[in-house]
């Protein structure tokens, strides 16, 4: 814990969990889509649904989708700015079984038609956890550069990814692998220490059985 965990973050009020954390969830979703969405369906669960409007949770998530930082004063006007930029936004309450009270589920569409579903929760003080990407369970903090590798559940894939990363003298701070079914699609998330060059993502993408790689920089 450093002093800026105590004095900070610099943010748009009123709530570090309901506003600043929500903006970060939107920011991560935008980064994972790799583009500004043209369509965003935003489901708010629990306390996010109940007190979200009063806390500006809706505006904050859209601000994140627009690429605004949690301390960007444009956050207040994010809904209007999204409209002007042609982003179709639909915000509604959802019931998500067993989810953290401050959870949002975002269904996004990019201009080229790609779709992405991201679920995340705001766990306090502006910290977040991304809990699912396209229905696959993950656990990302977005505080470190993170390599997200969608691959086929084939023996040796993990070792090949680890070797590629190790070959670039990168240290893995945390690791998680989940799969939908044996031999089916699986996702691994590697949170790394220090700066990560996008080249490593291209190298991992070239490995056999790897379907898609995203390098998520800290949001």
């Amino acid at each position, binding site marked *: *814990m*450093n*002093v*800026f*965990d*105590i*004095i*900070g*973050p*610099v*943010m*748009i*009020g*009123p*709530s*570090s969990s309901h*506003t*600043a954390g929500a903006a970060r969830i939107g920011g991560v979703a935008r980064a994972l889509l790799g583009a500004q969405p043209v369509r965003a369906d935003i489901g*708010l669960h629990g*306390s996010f*649904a*109940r*007190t*979200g*409007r*009063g*806390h*500006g949770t*809706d*505006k904050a998530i859209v601000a994140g989708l627009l690429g605004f930082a949690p*301390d960007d*004063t444009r*956050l*207040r006007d994010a809904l209007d700015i999204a409209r002007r930029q042609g982003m179709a936004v639909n*915000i*509604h*309450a959802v019931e998500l079984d067993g989810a953290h009270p401050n959870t949002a589920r975002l269904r996004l569409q990019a201009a080229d038609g790609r779709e992405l579903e991201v679920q995340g929760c705001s766990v*306090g*003080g*502006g910290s977040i956890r991304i809990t699912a990407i396209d229905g696959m369970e993950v656990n990302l903090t977005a505080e470190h550069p993170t390599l997200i590798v969608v691959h086929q559940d084939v023996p040796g894939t993990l070792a090949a990814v680890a070797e590629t990363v190790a070959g670039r003298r990168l240290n893995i701070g945390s690791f998680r692998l989940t799969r939908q079914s044996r031999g089916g699609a699986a996702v691994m998330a590697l949170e790394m220490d220090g700066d990560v060059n996008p080249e490593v993502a291209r190298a991992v993408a070239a490995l056999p059985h790897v379907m898609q790689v995203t390098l998520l920089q800290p949001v």
Partner: protein
Amino acid sequence: MQLDDTSLAALLAAAEQAGRPLSELVLAEQAEELEQTPQQVYDRMAACYAVMAEGVAPGCDPALRSASGLSGGNAAKMKAAVQAGATLTGPVLGGALTRALAISELNAAMGRIVAAPTAGSCGILPAALLTMEAEKGCPRRACVMALFTAAAVGRVIAKNASLAGAQGGCQAECGSAAAMAAAAIVELAGGTPAMIGHAVAIALKNVLGLVCDPVAGLVEVPCVKRNAAGVAGAFVAAELALAGIASVIPPDEAILAMKRVGDAMHPSLKETAEGGLAATPTACRLRDELLGGGPLP
């Protein structure tokens, strides 16, 4: 350099032994931990202080209102009273109350603030420091440095208790902010490390048991006025400690007591908006008006 931040006693002993202000020790330690130069770390803290200072003027706008309409415009009233010379306690406390209300109301109205340690308690520490700068002539550099002392106190509380209302009630948020502010004021006023400890203990003791009961679950009522009370409590604690008054209960024991009180607190009193002021007839009516109208389809 490694600082033992598991207890306030250890931190204050280190400052005593070094014969230097606690803030200087914390800055040196943080530079090592963050792998940056002391100047870089200082500059980052100075940027936080600048955000705090920039919040006062927009927070004092008489037309400022939150999205719910529950808060805003009270800092302007307090400021007017201070400017008219109409306050009972003078420009130091009056100025501190004005600034705490201003930054807290700005937060509620989606303005730019620094969580210190939380958004709900973001008015207390800046109000204390900006008032020491404006009313007592403390140099800005010293005020920025005092943020390191405040942060060190907050870190000890976070390690041994909590800074979150959902875990420890308002005592953990506004109480911790008041304790951090009290420490900062004592350092700025030239007090000893021991006085900092007494000020922290007194500030916490005076709000022990304070519940977190936000009306309609929003960071507005009673949060904004508790920020005013928080900075007043910080000045009370600092004033007593600087006069040489000791806390019978040492600060680390007060922090542990706060933790135990927080653990014993009923969940309805920990940010769930189900108890305390949030359960009063007026609060329930406001909640139904604000949220019953269907915030989300």
